[in-house]
């Protein structure tokens, strides 16, 4: 539906030396259809979770008014839930609800419960005693008293709770993007991953405005439901508010129309996804630009999805048509099969299983292998004549290794390495993946567990030792595409296979380095590479 172009990077404020208002307007108009979609997703997330929270919170608030023994338990539980950091909550819910909209709704509902329960209870327990006495004296039943007197009178306080809950939800819903639930948080996440403040603002500003809008709208509702006659000011405010809302809505629809007309009418659309790290963004750009250069298809970039599982699910559900995946990851994380050392064998297995289980096709790998690797300083390697991992055996007891904690624990990490090669290092320290390259270059450690295509390996003059016992599983990257798409656009196979074997470990290191360290955009780096290879020549 939306054929927006992926050009955050054409507006890098710091490099172009300031942006004009016009750029901003262009940027926003270009993204309007997507913004509209994300806004609707955001509203749905917030709205549904608030409705759930009201449906649960209101009865609970009434119950704890009657049953005091439940009161402390319920209110402490709701309080405790509120203190859980949002990301921790989402992570906690993952095993129960998976990813997507469901866990997001559960989390948002839990957060919204406290203000609603608390205010329902507070509103109902602070009613004027004479009014309740009158109701009893007039022969109201308990239920009648609740429905005709207590709830109507407590409504402003209850509504204040709902208002708080809704505003909290609008804020927290931005985090739902981390688990693929969509919403305005998508822009913020993408912006953060790419260090692009403009994208962050495209998510953050509408989210803030939405929160203000919800707050104001529910505030008005509170005024309307306060007992007694409505003051004139409230009526006037409501009119102005309603008027403004209509104006904004019409404006949005009109702008959307304009934006739509500006789009080229699409023939066929290919939606490309990627995970949320540099290498994936570069690969996504490579695939996208190839398709754009060699076919008439429109490319929709759905980059920066939250991780392997999210990409895979998006692919299987048909939300995206292809994304770059690694053979080893598919084998262990998706197919849950044991690790294997032989690259061709791994590729053959994932290819077969993906065809059978997911109706997806593995095209030819790009060539490089982004596996775990043992890296040392190049000058040490030259000095001591190290070429392969086995060469370290005689001196291993004197070497200090810096490994990530994951590598130290994983069976296909250090434990397996020791078993297969028959030696361990004299000292092993835990290291943050972001710091270990530098630590090795500076001489803090002698050996690290690197990712084979990391751009810092050439940058810090490090060397990867050959895995002569074929211990590390192969992680060859290749485009994975839905078969249905291949059938609809058969030309895609040939076009995408233009990159088969075209990217070596060293090349991928260099491309990653350009983006990570030289701060260039994935788009630009990809274009340069394709041009170099002569792959951008027009059809």
């Amino acid at each position, binding site marked *: 539906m939306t054929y927006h172009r992926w050009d955050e990077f054409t507006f890098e404020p710091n490099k172009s030396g300031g942006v004009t208002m016009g750029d901003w307007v262009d940027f926003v108009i270009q993204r309007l259809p997507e913004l509209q979609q994300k806004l609707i997703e955001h509203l749905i997330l917030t709205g549904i979770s608030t409705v759930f929270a009201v449906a649960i919170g209101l009865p609970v608030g009434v119950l704890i008014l009657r049953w005091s023994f439940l009161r402390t338990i319920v209110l402490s539980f709701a309080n405790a839930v509120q203190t859980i950091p949002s990301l921790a909550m989402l992570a906690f819910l993952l095993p129960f609800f998976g990813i997507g909209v469901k866990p997001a709704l559960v989390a948002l509902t839990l957060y919204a419960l406290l203000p609603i329960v608390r205010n329902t209870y507070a509103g109902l327990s602070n009613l*004027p*005693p*004479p*009014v*309740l*006495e*009158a*109701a*009893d*004296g*007039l*022969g*109201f*039943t308990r239920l*009648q008293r609740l429905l*005709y*007197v207590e709830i*109507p*009178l407590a409504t402003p306080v209850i509504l204040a709770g709902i208002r708080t809950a809704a505003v909290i939800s609008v804020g927290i819903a931005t985090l739902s993007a981390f688990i693929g639930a969509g919403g305005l948080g998508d822009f913020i996440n993408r912006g953060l991953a790419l260090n692009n403040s403009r994208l962050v603002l495209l998510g953050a500003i509408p989210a803030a405005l939405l929160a203000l809008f919800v707050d104001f709208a529910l505030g008005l509702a509170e005024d309307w439901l306060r*007992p*007694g*006659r409505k003051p004139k000011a409230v009526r006037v405010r409501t009119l102005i508010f309603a008027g403004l809302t209509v104006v904004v809505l019409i404006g949005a629809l009109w702008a959307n129309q304009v934006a739509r007309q500006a789009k080229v009418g699409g023939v066929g659309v290919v939606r490309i996804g990627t995970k949320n790290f540099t290498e994936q963004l570069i690969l996504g750009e490579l695939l996208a630009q190839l398709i754009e250069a060699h076919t008439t298809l429109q490319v929709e970039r759905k980059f920066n999805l939250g991780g392997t599982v999210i990409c895979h699910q998006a692919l299987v559900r048909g939300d995206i048509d292809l994304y770059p995946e690694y053979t080893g990851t598919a084998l262990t994380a998706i197919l849950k099969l044991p690790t294997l050392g032989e690259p061709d064998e791994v590729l053959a297995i994932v290819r077969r299983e993906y065809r059978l289980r997911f109706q997806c096709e593995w095209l030819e790998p790009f060539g490089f292998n982004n596996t775990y690797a043992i890296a040392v300083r190049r000058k040490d390697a030259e000095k001591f004549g190290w070429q392969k991992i086995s060469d370290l055996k005689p001196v291993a007891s004197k070497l200090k290794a810096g490994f990530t904690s994951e590598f130290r624990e994983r069976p296909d990490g250090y434990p397996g390495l020791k078993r297969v090669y028959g030696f361990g290092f004299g000292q092993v320290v835990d290291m943050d993946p972001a710091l270990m390259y530098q630590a090795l270059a500076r001489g803090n450690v002698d050996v690290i567990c690197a990712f084979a295509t990391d751009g810092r390996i050439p940058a810090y003059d490090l060397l990867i030792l050959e895995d002569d016992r074929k211990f590390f599983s192969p992680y060859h990257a290749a485009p994975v595409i839905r078969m249905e798409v291949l059938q609809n656009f058969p030309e895609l196979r040939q076009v995408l296979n233009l990159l088969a074997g075209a990217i070596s470990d060293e090349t991928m290191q260099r491309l990653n380095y350009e983006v990570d360290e030289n701060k260039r955009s994935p788009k630009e780096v990809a274009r340069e590479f394709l041009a170099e290879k002569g792959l951008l020549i027009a059809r």
Partner: protein
Amino acid sequence: MIVSRDVWKSFDGGKTFAVKGVSLEVAKGETLVLLGSSGSGKTTTLKMINRLIEPTKGTIEIDGRNVMDMNPVELRRSIGYVFQGIGLFPHLTVAENVSIVLRLLGRPKREQQKRAEELLELVGLDPKEFADRYPDELSGGQQQRVGVARALAADPEYLLMDEPFGALDAVTRDILQQELLRLKEQLRKTIVFVTHDIFEALLLADRIAVMHDGRIEQIGTKEELIKQPATDFVRQLFEQPAKHLAIFSAVLHEGAQPSSS
């Protein structure tokens, strides 16, 4: 007819009693005033009649039926209740307040409206002017008129009034007392009226029950209480109007000269 026999009430499980062995009868069409200072047990005695409070011991019967055997909701709907706090529902208009009981009974909307107008006229409020107002737009006196109208909505035979005019200023109170006298003549309800104001009691009562420390000191007509007080407490109580009158006439007859004291 309301009959209570040896009614006791304790709020602390039997350590102390707020009402101690009260027995009384209220005849049909009669107005009985429970007169006493605060803490004398008069309000508790009243509220046990419609079971807002339940007796610890003893029985209360209405038309021969023990109130404890009756459904409290039905019991209360058959007895009008007016109290000092008024307790109008702030989210409902005056007319809606008056007809709320009919709404609970599921009577048609038109009947509710008609009855509300009738009752507002009865308590001296012009329906055209007041029906659609909210309680906070009324004065205290007007609010209590609505309170009385609301209590009369289901046309109950009995009316319990707990210091209904206690929070009003003297002038308003005077007007409402006169109105109540008129209503009493017009409607012939059986009324139990609680007050600490001896003048109010003398004005409204057919009979007065003087309460002190949870007991009834004496129950009888105004003449009996004034002429044949049964206890010192009752005698001293009914000497008060005479004292006030003496001060009043002294001021009246001796001009600006205050009496020596």
